């Protein structure tokens, strides 16, 4: 019968199977989270890009309304802005608050990872 002592001498030479399996399992778990991080980064970058473009479109439209006056714009209008990565639908509406002021609302819609995203901004301008 083989004694345990001889095994301990053998063990010094290499890793046990359990050690290797535990190490592999932890490494696999770690790798999964690292790969998930890559996906998250890609998704975040796309979201940041789309949001910035939409915000700029809304801001530019409102600046135009402010410069020209609300009366120069139709009560409801829609247009499309295409970039190399996405299509943005711009909906503009003017609602009269008084003889002097109007409220200009701009809604920019786009698709982000299969879901619809809506960004809206408003400003009170002279008629």
């Amino acid at each position, binding site marked *: 019968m083989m004694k345990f002592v001889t095994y301990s001498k053998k063990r010094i030479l290499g890793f046990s199977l359990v050690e290797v399996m535990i190490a592999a399992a932890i490494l696999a778990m770690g790798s999964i989270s690292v790969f998930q991080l890559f996906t998250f980064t890609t998704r975040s970058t796309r979201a940041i890009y789309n949001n910035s473009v939409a915000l700029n479109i809304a801001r530019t439209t409102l600046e135009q309304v402010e410069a020209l006056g609300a*009366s120069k714009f139709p009560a409801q209008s829609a247009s499309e802005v295409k970039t190399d990565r996405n299509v943005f639908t711009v909906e503009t509406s003017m609602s009269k608050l008084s003889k002097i002021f109007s409220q200009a609302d701009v809604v920019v819609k786009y698709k982000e990872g299969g879901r619809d995203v809506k960004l809206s901004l408003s*400003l009170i301008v*002279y008629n």
Partner: protein
Amino acid sequence: MITKNLSAYLHKIFNVRIRFFEPVSAIGQKGSSLLVVLGILSVIFIFGFGYANYLNGQVYFLEREKDYEAARLIIKSAFTETLYLLNYDNSEFIKKLQNVSSQGFSKPFDFYQAKVEASKRLMKKIFEKYDNPSLKVWLELIEPVDFKISSAPGEKFARFKLHGQLNAGIIASRLEYEVIARLAKIVHENRDSTYYIKLTPERIFAVIAKDEFIESGRYYGICVYTGMDPKRAKKAALANEEFKALLVTPNGSVIVDKALPTGDFCLTFGPAIAR
């Protein structure tokens, strides 16, 4: 005892042997594979989670950026409304402005608080998810110029800082503009005499270059028309009910007189300068 039996059992079945509680140094090994892997992984985790956290923060602030822009536009709307209201519904403000002198003035930081109802309604609609969003617009008096110091009789200038502040949940936005108010006394009997008004280039507070501006009623007080066709401007100004101003040419001759009939004073604001 249990661990010893378990170890023997595992050895019997799988031909492997585990020592559960013995430190690595006691076994006499130089290192353990498990420890090395754990070391590498901890480094990956620390940097990986740090980066993921940073990205999460970026996305979070990006989502808030839209709200901050909306807040900024609401304050801008409130400024538009304030300047208009001060020009048309300004009795309280004019009284305050009449009473200040360049020698001293009290409460300069909260000289006048504007009631901006339309902008407040807009704010409540946009920030309805937050409880009690608040919008405050006030004028801080920087420098008044006394009637006596002012070269033309019946005129007063004052520089103001126009402050706007919006708070809604985690959103806190603030804007500052600088405006110049001009309190001009137009004496009725001298209305026809442009000489009395003494318009000089530095006293021009609004320059109208397009008929569209007159048609939209955007200017009030004393307006100087620099367009090509004064006859057309006159027609447009007379036709527009909102246009209440004294419209003159740069050399001072009157085109239209539709100045405020309610009093002798006409308050006008210079351009707002964003800071």
